[in-house]
């Protein structure tokens, strides 16, 4: 059940994120860059401007936080993003979320899966501290299996050390 629902939402996220920073496992990483200003002046409310839309969540609020090497501590910038995420989740109680933890490739496969889990849980705990019900949040770790940037330097590694909050409609279990 979870798998099916998740796939449907991932498909949406992929479509909307395709023109910015493609990430099969979440929305665009560059907040607000996903929708051209042309559509904003056309009169109709685009999904990115609807503050209750998942697109707004992923692109305007920002669906991800980044981590330092080996760390799972939420940075001050990450806290701001997560406060925004928590606000959205609290305003939209019908949605659930899956938090995906990731690591860069500088580590063994097994350890990075555990590290990604630690990061995803740090995000979950923060969201819960902001009033989001714990049973609306589920975590998964991809370890180093799903990098979004593939260069072999800190510029890429820093983008891969991430936790992405993916909005899912319906229940999680």
């Amino acid at each position, binding site marked *: 059940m979870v*798998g099916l629902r998740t796939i449907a939402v991932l498909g949406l996220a992929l479509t909307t994120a395709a023109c910015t920073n493609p990430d099969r496992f979440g929305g665009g990483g560059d907040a607000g860059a996903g929708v051209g200003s042309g559509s904003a002046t056309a009169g109709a409310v685009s999904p990115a401007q609807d503050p209750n839309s998942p697109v707004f969540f992923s692109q305007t609020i920002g669906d991800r936080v980044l981590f330092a090497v080996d760390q799972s501590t939420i940075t001050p910038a990450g806290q701001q993003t997560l406060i925004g995420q928590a606000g959205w989740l609290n305003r939209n109680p019908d949605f659930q979320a899956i938090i995906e933890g990731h690591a860069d490739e500088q580590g063994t*496969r*097994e*350890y990075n*899966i555990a590290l990604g889990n630690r990061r995803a849980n740090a995000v979950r705990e923060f969201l819960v501290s902001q009033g989001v019900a714990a049973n609306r949040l589920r975590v998964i770790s991809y370890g180093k299996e799903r990098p979004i940037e*593939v260069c072999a330097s800190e510029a890429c590694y820093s983008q891969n050390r991430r936790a992405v909050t993916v909005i899912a409609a319906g229940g999680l279990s």
Partner: protein
Amino acid sequence: MKRLWTLILAAVMAGGLLAPVQAQDGPLRLTITDGVIEPLPFAVPTFEAETPQAAQVAADISRLVAQDLSGTGLFREISPDAFISQVASFAQPVAYADWRAINAQALITGAVAVNGDNLTVKFRLYDVFSGTELGGGLQFAGTVPGWRRMAHKVADAAYSRITGEGGYFDSRVVFVSESGPKDNRAKRLAIMDYDGANVQFLTDSSAIVLAPRFSPAGDRVLYTSYESGFPRINVIDVASVGRRQLSTAEGEMAFSPRFSRDGREVVYSLANGGNTDLYRTDLTTGAHTRLTTTPSIETAPSFSPDGSQIVFESDRSGTPQIYIMGANGGEARRVSFGEGRYGTPVWSPRGDLIAFTKQNAGRFHIGVMRTDGSEERLLTASPLDEGPTWSPNGRVIMFTRETLGASGTSSLYSVDVSGRNLKAVPVNGGASDPAWGPLQP
């Protein structure tokens, strides 16, 4: 001959550093020197075809026997071009002088018969300089399509008689076959002969699969799969490729499984609330035992050969290091104290060494250390080496080497436990996470 080689190999295994040996001309006299190891010269004349249809497969088997032995780095094949006499008949006495003259210290002769689909291979091994046969003649029966296994069995027998150790040629490796770009890599389980031949796929690539591990008998494989949407441990039957999800203790994610040495239990990592601990599950009773309770990451467990201990990776000290605890948990002692981060420890089948991945100063290494952490030796260095697995006889380690960057790919490599003979295992496409199975019956 056998005794001498046993001694030398034992010295290599036991010595903290490379214990180089040199084979010299003349009657078998092997001297340990500070130089490089001089491989033992051997000759494999093309095996006799006892039936007309056997000519091609006899030639193929002879070549593969030579390839297996040369591939160890311990032996050097003398080119058939140098042969003075050919061995026309398997039954004929050996003309030792002709083989001494070209300095062949070992001579392997054989005969192959094909009857329909059935294949029979006979072989003899000679100690040329003492002019005696080493062990008796042996005969293997199999099928024509399975001719490679017959060759591997001959090579295993020769290797074993000369070195006094078990062989590893007639063995299989389960691994993850990779394709596609680095940010959207498709992975599927595959199995192959130790030398990269006969690749067969066990799963499709619809879900991420990671780190397969053979059962001690080689009939089942544990692996981590995202098939359910979340990391779970699956077990697959190699022959039928029937698979099922393992019933583990309750957790967000289960991964990094490994069989106990009797194949009845599985030890693995379970993640809950950001904390990853080790558990073990009895496959017969379904009973789960929690082995660690620290708030740190515990993963990559591996049993000692006697089943009494588990070596694993933990970051309880702040960085990933190697620890050993009893098989039922309890107090663990840290064994890695060198610079850098240590992971993926694997106990050798002999019990004397632990192979590991080490990360230090921007490089990855495959290394070995004694079980008390002493005599650490790094066998490889590259931007990304990881995940060692032992050959059945504990002499060779296979691992994953990944090249970095957008076009980076994973490949399998092997290296002798002494650090010599590093080479790629030829596999089409990308490959990672090898796990070496037992010698086949």
